[in-house]
């Protein structure tokens, strides 16, 4: 299989707190993998270690055939190829939806404006942000629209993989669906993704694998149906039982 992202034995501590205690996994091209686990398990820390927004204390990360954790790597160059979608959207407040998607293309990739605009519009249409919203500022958009613009911003950079950190957790329940729908479409189009989420429906319908994190480790992993319905570990079972009670098995 064509591995695009590989993490090997990632460790991270904050002071005396060991947040990540040796995490290893791979994501193949076109795959969608889901990470879930209780609050404080270290999921966000892990994602941030993958594009080195946070530097792991130990362990290595590869993107395609480049080792990101090698000191000689130009990390800014590599981050262009790793999309990141945040729980809190983090759209640039002073830019319109279109400019939010364009700025990475013009200022980072240094593409000419015309080309950047064309790519940005295409990305916005892919996430179903229609022309009437292109000149709106983030504060004028709904949460679901903001998150879809954020996905377009990542997508426009033509990334090797997109990392999502609980992309629907900050959304009002009635807006979650539109974002998940877009993410599913991308997954079906074989846009490689690594998704931290508690949306079991999403995992069951498009994920190739679920990795369950607990206490800084991946304690269980496997095909979504297996992990969700036949968990091998006590903590995993308890977690999914609680989730399905909370979310009522929403698909």
């Amino acid at each position: 299989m064509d591995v695009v992202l590989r993490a090997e034995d990632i460790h991270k501590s904050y002071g005396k707190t060991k947040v990540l205690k040796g995490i290893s996994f791979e994501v193949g091209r076109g795959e969608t993998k889901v990470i879930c686990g209780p609050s404080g398990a270290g999921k966000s820390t892990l994602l941030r270690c993958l594009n080195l927004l946070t530097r792991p204390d130990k362990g290595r990360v590869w993107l395609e055939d480049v080792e990101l954790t090698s000191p000689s790597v130009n990390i800014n160059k590599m981050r262009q190829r790793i999309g990141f979608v945040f729980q809190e959207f983090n759209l640039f407040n002073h830019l319109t939806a279109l400019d939010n998607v364009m700025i990475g293309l013009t200022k980072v990739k240094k593409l000419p404006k015309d080309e950047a605009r064309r790519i940005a519009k295409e990305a916005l249409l892919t996430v179903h942000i229609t022309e009437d919203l292109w000149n709106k500022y983030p504060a004028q958009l709904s949460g679901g629209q903001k998150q879809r613009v954020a996905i377009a911003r990542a997508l426009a950079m033509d990334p090797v993989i997109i990392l999502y950190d609980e992309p629907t957790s900050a959304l009002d329940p009635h807006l979650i669906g539109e974002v998940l729908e877009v993410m599913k479409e991308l997954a079906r189009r074989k846009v490689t993704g690594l998704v931290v989420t508690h949306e079991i429906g999403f995992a069951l319908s498009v994920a190739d694998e679920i990795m369950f994190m607990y206490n800084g480790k991946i304690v269980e992993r496997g095909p979504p149906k297996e992990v969700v319905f036949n968990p091998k570990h006590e903590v995993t079972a308890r977690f999914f039982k609680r989730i399905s009670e909370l979310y009522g098995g929403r698909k």
Partner: protein
Amino acid sequence: MFWAYVPYMLAGVLWTFALVGGGLGLGFLIGLPIAIGQVYGGRVVKAFLDVYVWFFRGVPLLVLLFLFYWGVFPALGHKLPALEASIIVLGLRSGAYQSQIFRGAIESVGEGQMVAARSLGMSRVSAILHIILPQALRIAIPGWTNEYAILLKDSAICFTLGVLEILTRTRYVVIATGEALLPYITAGFLFIFLTYGGTKVLNVIYEKTRIPGLVWRM
């Protein structure tokens, strides 16, 4: 007769403008980099900048004026004309105050903006330039408006160096006419008008550059 001297007093407005414009401009050029250094710089840089801010905010303006005009500039081998010396001192001091305005503004932009910019592959410098500052400068306008009003009034102290601004001229008129009430009232109103007018202009700029829909959490 006092009224004959009004044009002479009004000409002082230009000098006051020079002091305020120069002071604010220089203060901006000093204050913004200081703020950036204080937020994003290393420990040594921060400590150094803190000392600068602490000094220029702690020493009275009058002392600064005398210190630089009579002391520092001559010691550097350049006894500057009063206007230039005053502008520089006002600028150095305003830079210290403005740095605190910009620093607060930068800090209120929110960490997520920087993280998102870096995640796109932007360098730190590029993120500050394209993402942080455009927002921080907008946020800073009200504070900056305040600084304009304060600096405008403080600029009157430059009469002590004989800069031909509003107050200096007013004093000359008082001496020439032997009349104090009308000249000083006129001077007072000139400052009020300038404060009001400048504040108005800056408020318009603030409204015009507002980001639609956004309410900053300060």
